[in-house]
């Protein structure tokens, strides 16, 4: 059922708590990164989220791009662009991973500039790749092929496999800072819910057209979750771009260790 494909890339900023509110709305951040207005902006609290939350969404470099500002984290997420038909059968995937690589790389300097003075305590960058499988046995086989020999697991037909490794190392620019380099392998069961909104829905996201179409999927997934450590002090504004670049560049090494070739990420560096 296909090959490994990029599914999502994300940059996350963690503000210090107890000081000032994160100064940018999702709209501000979206504009700072893309240089244009979003297609959708929602500043009200969503029905299922108990806490303040603003979301701006649109397209950037052929990908869906969303900024979400919440009290404890700010997520900038690149995901597959709109599908030709809303009920397409496949698992959502970014068909050209070079676009994702370019979008993440080009966002870093924009983010660094936009969040100056925002008092951040932690930064993270995340890349998820996956491939749809028919059975857990097939998913386990793909996972086995990507596990470094040191961590080989004799998987067969087990379900819900998860293996997560952190191989932290000192930051190149600051030997006292230990950066987290996490790789997580899993075989995930998913439900894909497809909604259609009423034509006259006054607010984006207010779905009124009845029950969603549900399909069940099984996917082998590898997630690379790199971050600076949770610390008590503010990250120097001049370090934000450097830390994001260091953690971004490490994707290349992690993918090589998994024996996965992802176009654009072979020699990623910013």
């Amino acid at each position, binding site marked *: 059922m296909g090959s490994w494909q990029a*599914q*999502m890339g*994300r940059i996350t900023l963690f503000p*210090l*708590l*107890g000081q000032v509110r994160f100064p940018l709305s999702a709209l501000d951040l979206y504009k700072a990164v893309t240089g244009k207005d979003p297609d*959708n902006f*929602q500043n009200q609290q969503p029905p*299922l989220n*108990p*806490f*303040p939350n603003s979301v701006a*969404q649109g397209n950037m470099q052929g990908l869906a791009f*969303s900024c979400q500002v*919440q*009290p*404890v984290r700010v997520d900038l997420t690149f*995901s*597959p662009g*709109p599908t030709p038909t*809303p009920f*397409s059968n496949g*698992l959502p995937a970014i068909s050209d991973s070079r676009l994702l690589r370019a979008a993440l790389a080009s966002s870093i300097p924009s983010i660094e500039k936009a969040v100056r003075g925002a008092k951040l*305590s*932690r930064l993270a960058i995340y890349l*998820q790749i996956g491939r749809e499988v028919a059975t*857990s046995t097939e998913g386990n086989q793909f996972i086995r092929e990507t596990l470094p020999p040191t961590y080989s697991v004799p998987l067969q037909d*087990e*379900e*819900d*496999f*998860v*293996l*997560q490794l*952190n*191989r*932290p190392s000192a930051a190149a620019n600051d030997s006292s800072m230990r950066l987290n380099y*996490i790789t*997580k392998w899993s075989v*995930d*069961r*998913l*439900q*894909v*819910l*497809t*909604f*259609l*909104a009423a034509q006259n*829905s006054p607010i*984006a*996201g207010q779905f009124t057209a009845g029950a969603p179409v549900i399909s*069940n999927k099984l996917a082998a997934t590898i*997630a690379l979750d790199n*971050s600076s*450590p*949770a*610390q*008590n*002090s503010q990250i120097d504004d001049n370090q934000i771009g450097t830390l994001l670049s260091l953690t971004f560049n490490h994707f290349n090494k992690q993918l090589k260790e998994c024996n996965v070739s992802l176009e654009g990420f072979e020699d990623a560096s910013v």
Partner: protein
Amino acid sequence: MPAFNTLVRIDTASGNSAELDTAANSTPKSSYAGMFDIAVGTQYVIYNSSRTDQLGTQPRGAYQEVAQTLTDMRDSTSDDEQRIETDVYNLSVDVAAALFDENIPAPSVFSHGPKSVVFNWDDGVHNLYLTVGRARLWAMASTAAGIKGQIELTNPANHIAGNFFKAISPGIAGLLTHITK
């Protein structure tokens, strides 16, 4: 042989008991959680696994009550004993959002005068209290026999970040251990 669930976690940096475990260092709420769109006619992907630490098991309804209680406290009239100051409200919302983000069960909420809010968990034996002030945060554990430990989770500059997140990332049981060790 029947299929069984497998969960393995390895942290190559472990060996020091003070080190965080791998789970505490990870940052995503869940795989696939970011793949959503508020636009018309697009796909939503929701995690659906037998694991219980993923999106979808978070006690949203209970946290909506927490958020509403905090709002009511802020909006109370000045002579109401439940009223809290705006700075206390803002920090309480941040702390509650962090607890929600870590999938920690929703606490009971009490005011303690206008300058603090108390979050409380009671398992029948232990009582755990998080006291949120204008810019500071304390945790305390007690049993019927008395106070078992207390700790401030704010750093000298009144920042609430690393210490707090390290304390709550293992969950309530981990926080209890952290306070009482």
